[in-house]
């Protein structure tokens, strides 16, 4: 337990260890710790930002979806409207077409009837002439009486 040269030796060892620690141990570790601190802080900030961006994106997506839904609704509504319109149009077309056909048919019928009537009149006239000639028992000059006969036919 004497105080001797060991004291100096210990002091030297102390100086060397402290110097080494100061030069080669402390700075890299503390630098790494500080770097990590900033890295973690940055990471947390980035996460926060990401969360915010996500929320924004969600909001945007919701907006887009609702817009799309609205649009779809609108399209459906328009389609339905167009459908009824088309049906109405078709109905109208069919009606006019029917009317047209009906009118044509009616014209045709009238024409036919008229033709039949004319034919009948002719025949009746012929019959009447024949009848009259028979009744009169004498020859009637058909040509001479044609004017009278025509008037008769027109009266029928």
């Amino acid at each position, binding site marked *: 337990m004497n105080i*001797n040269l060991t*004291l100096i*030796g210990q002091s030297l060892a*102390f100086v060397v260890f*402290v110097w080494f620690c100061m030069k080669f141990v402390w700075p890299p570790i503390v630098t*790494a710790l500080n770097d990590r601190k900033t890295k973690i802080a940055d990471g947390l900030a980035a996460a926060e930002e990401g969360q915010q961006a996500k929320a924004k994106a969600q909001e945007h997506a919701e907006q887009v979806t609702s817009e799309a839904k609205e649009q779809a609704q609108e399209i459906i509504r328009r389609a339905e409207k167009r459908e009824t319109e088309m049906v109405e149009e078709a109905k109208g077309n069919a009606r006019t077409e029917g009317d047209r056909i009906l009118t044509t048919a009616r014209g045709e019928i009238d024409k036919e009837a008229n033709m039949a009537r004319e034919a009948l009149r002719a025949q009746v006239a012929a019959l009447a002439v024949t009848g009259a000639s028979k009744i009169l028992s004498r020859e009637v000059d058909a040509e001479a009486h044609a004017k009278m006969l025509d008037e008769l036919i027109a009266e029928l």
Partner: protein
Amino acid sequence: MASSEALTTTGYIKHHLQNLTFGQHPDGTWGIAHGAAEAKAMGFWAIHLDTMFWSVLLGALFIWVFRRAAVKASAGVPSGLLNFVEWVVEFVDDNVRGSFSHKNDLVAPLALTLFVWVLLMNTMDLVPVDWLPELAKLMGIEYMKVVPTTDPNATFGMALGVFVLTVFYSIKVKGIGGFTAELTMQPFAAKNPILKILFLPANFFLEFVSLVSKPVSLSLRLFGNLFAGEMIFILIALLFSGGAVLFIAGGVLQWAWAVFHILIVLLQAFIFMTLTIVYLEMAHSHH
């Protein structure tokens, strides 16, 4: 060992308290001292080989482990050794930040070195007192004191380093004038120049004592605690030669004292570090 017939109880204790001293014998030859008297006769120019060996070994262990961690240190995810080292570094850094308010790149590494180094040296105390000396005896080494902090040379050596730094920074921060004024102009302060001169001797005496008492108390506190702890381990070890009952009692006592001693080992290292920081803080601040 106490069981060997050649050694009495006193001899056993004395043997355990004897450093492996290398120096010049009074007759002019160089060699290892056999016994306390021879070591004393060697005077100042002798060296404790065991203290030097263990303290440098443990200091190198600290440097090696922490350097390995420092090489691996990155901003990425830490693991294993790096985690542990970072924990220690942050603990020391917190303490330095708490007590030291100036800008000095030396203080934190100094505190870290002192804390870990002293802790490692103290921890040698927990190795059963006979193991390493017996091993050394097998290797032909007569004396082996394995706890460097039970050698006042080791604690004084470190405290001396701290003291030199304290004085250096006192002068660097406050100038020679400021440092001298601090030593001579307080605690008895006066405006009158004559009174100032009158107070000077008393002031200087008080301040000088308080200045010198810092390294002395710093080293003696550590030395005293560890020496006492070691002494008790040695006394407990004596029980092992006293029959079965004492053997068991000794075992239990040694275990209990070792558990309690962990606290002292850690606490003394922490106190040494904290006081170093405080002394350097005082050196940096103006009174």
